[in-house]
């Protein structure tokens, strides 16, 4: 699980161009949106595509994303449970 969390942090920094943020600066329970990393709706779309492409998880209800993308911890748990690749 810790490998998956590390992988997610790396992917988020690379794919969302968070050039000024280091992996160590993202705590597992930090909120990804709002006051935490400050991600926005376009980032949410990028994350939905990433789940589909890299883990084979298709989110059909966009409202699900709000809950799944709460933090690295929540994301990693959801991916571990639902991944098809």
């Amino acid at each position, binding site marked *: 699980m810790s490998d998956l969390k590390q992988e997610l942090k790396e992917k988020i920094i690379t*794919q*969302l*161009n*968070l*050039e*000024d943020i280091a992996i160590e600066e993202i705590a597992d329970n930090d909120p990804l949106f709002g006051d935490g990393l*400050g991600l926005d709706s*376009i980032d949410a*779309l*990028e994350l939905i*595509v990433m789940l*589909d*492409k890299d883990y084979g998880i298709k989110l059909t209800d966009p409202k699900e994303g709000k809950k799944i993308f709460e933090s690295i911890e929540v994301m990693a748990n959801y991916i571990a449970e639902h991944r098809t690749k």
Partner: protein
Amino acid sequence: MEKVYINSIGSISAQKTFDNNDFLEEIVTYQDNIIPVIEPNYKDFIPPAAARRMAKGIKMGVVASKIALEEANLTDIDAIITGTGMGCVRDSEKFVTAILDNNEQFLTPTSFIQSTHNTVAGQIALGIGCKGYNFTYVHSSVSFESALLDAFMQLELKEAENILVGGVDESGDHTNAIHKLIQHIKPEKINSKELLHSKTGGAVFGEGANFFVLSNKKQDYSYAQLLGIKTYNTLAKSDLVANLEVFLKEKNLTFGDIDVLISGNNGDIDYDNYYSELTNGPFKDTQQVAYKHLSGEFNTASAFGFWLGAKILRTQHIPSPVALNPIKIKGLENVLLYNQYRGKNHSFTLLRRC
């Protein structure tokens, strides 16, 4: 009809031009067939949160426009008009590559949003909260001149007071690879000091962003007056001099009134002969200037020539690295720019000291 002035400038190029206090005092020489811009520290101009989704072309355009607006002491503007040949080509390449690699699946929004040609003008408007006229011209190597002509006419007719005009193009790896394949880029890497004497076909490609505040209100700090622009999609070499004569006559000028000719030579032996029609013809005894050995060739490289013309008129100085001949005349009043690319999309632009 109102007169139109260049009130400020902002340039990101392959030279250190982002500081308006410098004027090509230190030339960077390249040994290559594709040259990049010297980038300023973008974080000094753009908040990191805003910059993270911006492609290089957007960052260059936003910074060049900020430099120009700051020099003109303006926080808002009546209109934003840009010219670009290829737009945000890097993100276009990224998006199209993703379509092919992923079999039309998993397409992400960021590169698609940024792949359009008018992203730069849009981002500038968002950054300063400008809700005015916002337009982007995509007309190959007369893209910048088309934007300039639009602004010129609006200012002449008093439809606006201050307009931000710019030319911006970024270099894209895949696009450059294609241009190498068809030999529009020189096959050999060449020293920029030797480029204009090259005996081979093709050009050295570059990139850049050059922005200007044009206004019908002259200021103490105005660089020059813009007298007119004329563009041609096709123009035979044999008709060049006659068409230029007509253009100058419309402005009550003759060849002899031109003090400096700024020509867009790029070292392509197959097409630089268009410039020779002027440099060996009516302007053989006139001061001649060239700039593409410093900037590289790109669709809006002529905006760098425009920047050069404005600087020459304000400083009354021609830096030696841009001088094509040893002729030196004091009291520079009228500057003519001529540009074309591969025998198409020609432009004449006329500037006057103010």
